[in-house]
């Protein structure tokens, strides 16, 4: 995965070579959405409607998230983007009075079926929130927490997982001597990476980021973005962000939500250079209002 043969990857992922025209590359217009990221989605929504009481918050959303890709969801406040990603690991069930119609498939299996255990699901589909939310415990205990509640007792295994997760979250070098210190003493950026490490410790397959940098300074934001780019080698990543430059920097694909509708989804470079829908253009160029 680390030295990707781009050409081979394009072929194996359904990219049609005939779409590349001439020596200079791809004609963006003709390429359309038949792009190089044509793999089977890891997780997808089909015809999803979602209601808070009688109010419909999402309208007939169908979208797939491909493995080892970052998909950014953008849109103005209240468009339903955070609501939507919370459906992907059934977090919506924690809110009373909500109702969901449609299907959400993880590796082709419906996660909404009664046979699917939400706790098991959330191990496979982890979430990182806008505000870092470490537990008032030590750094080590924070990362080990998910393993322990899942019944892992082997101390050596726990230690291995904690160290591995902290390394993957690009935090190990900074706090390897402070594992027994309270997590609440870390900086905001470190706390957020700790939350990512906590999420990684239970070996998820999909990671949902809900505005993970909203409360961070630019340096910490840069570290989280670098981390997301690193993590995408192993995970399917969906990120909700208000920051369009962030979406442009970290994502392979971008989806634009507006008033509960999915307006447009496509390759990030296409969305930011030449969106198909006027409403997307108006939003990303700041003409909304």
């Amino acid at each position: 995965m680390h030295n990707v043969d781009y050409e081979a990857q394009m072929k194996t992922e359904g990219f049609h070579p005939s779409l590349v025209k001439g020596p200079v590359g791809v004609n963006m217009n003709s390429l359309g959405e038949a792009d190089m990221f044509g793999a089977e989605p890891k997780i997808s929504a089909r015809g999803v409607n979602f209601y808070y009481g009688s109010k419909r918050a999402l309208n007939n959303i169908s979208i797939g998230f491909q493995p080892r890709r970052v998909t950014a969801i953008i849109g103005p406040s209240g468009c339903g983007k955070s609501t939507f990603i919370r459906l992907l690991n059934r977090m919506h069930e924690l809110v009373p009075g909500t109702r969901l119609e449609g299907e959400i498939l993880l590796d082709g299996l419906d996660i909404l079926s009664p046979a699917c255990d939400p706790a098991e699901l959330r191990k496979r589909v982890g979430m990182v929130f806008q505000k870092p939310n470490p537990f008032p415990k030590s750094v080590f205990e924070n990362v080990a927490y998910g393993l322990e509640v899942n019944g892992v007792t082997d101390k050596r295994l726990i230690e291995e997982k904690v160290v591995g997760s902290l390394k993957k979250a690009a935090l190990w070098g900074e706090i390897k001597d402070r594992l027994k210190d309270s997590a609440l003493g870390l900086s905001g950026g470190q706390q957020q990476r700790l939350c990512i490490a906590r999420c990684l410790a239970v070996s998820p397959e999909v990671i949902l980021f809900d505005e993970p940098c909203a409360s961070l300074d630019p340096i910490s934001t840069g570290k989280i973005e670098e981390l997301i780019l690193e993590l995408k080698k192993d995970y399917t990543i969906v990120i909700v962000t208000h920051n369009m430059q962030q979406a442009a920097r970290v994502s392979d694909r971008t989806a634009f939500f507006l008033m509960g509708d999915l307006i447009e989804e496509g390759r990030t470079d296409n969305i930011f250079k030449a969106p198909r829908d006027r409403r997307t253009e108006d939003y990303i160029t700041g003409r909304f209002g």
Partner: protein
Amino acid sequence: MHRHFDEELQQLKDRILEMAALAQAAIAASVEALKNRDKAAAQKVIDSDAELDRLELIIDDKCLDLIALHQPMAGDLRFITTAIKLNVELERIGDLAVDVAQRALVIADKPLLKPLVDIPRLGEIAKRMTGSAIESFITGDTELAKRVVLSDSEADVLKRSVEKELIYGYMMKDGSTADRAVPLLLTARHLERICDHAVSMAEDIIYMVSAVVVRHHPEELK
């Protein structure tokens, strides 16, 4: 919604139009100077190029500022990247008009080899193509821009005809005509190059308006 950024983009557009007007005037004046064997007019074209060079730097700087400070996206991004390219094309057109003016200076003191017919026609085509490209920039008319791209062969055919006539009709028959024929050959070449730059501008404008890449993709023009 009103955006202050739109005012900045309009200022950039105005600068490009200012530059286009100067470049178009330089083409017309250089061909007139050649036709009329007017050394003073030719010198004026050469001197006025400094203004185009000055504007080029201003526009370059403005484009970099807009990218650095506003991080433009989508149509805004395509507009600014197109402005960067038009800026280069227009500056080159100005340089080619200077080249024509320099040839005018060379031949002004010598008797004409023949009455100038095709070269002024080539000059008209260069003016028309440049003007149409700029008009498509102003109006966003991609059909007009496509016509500019497709009309390039007209200039190529005329240039080849001039070359053929000067080489085979004069220089091959009488080597002593070379000092009067070569400046005309070069002039035809300069004017044809102006047409090529007009084509490049039109291709950039089509991308700006519709995000369709026609450069190196002639099938997209159908």
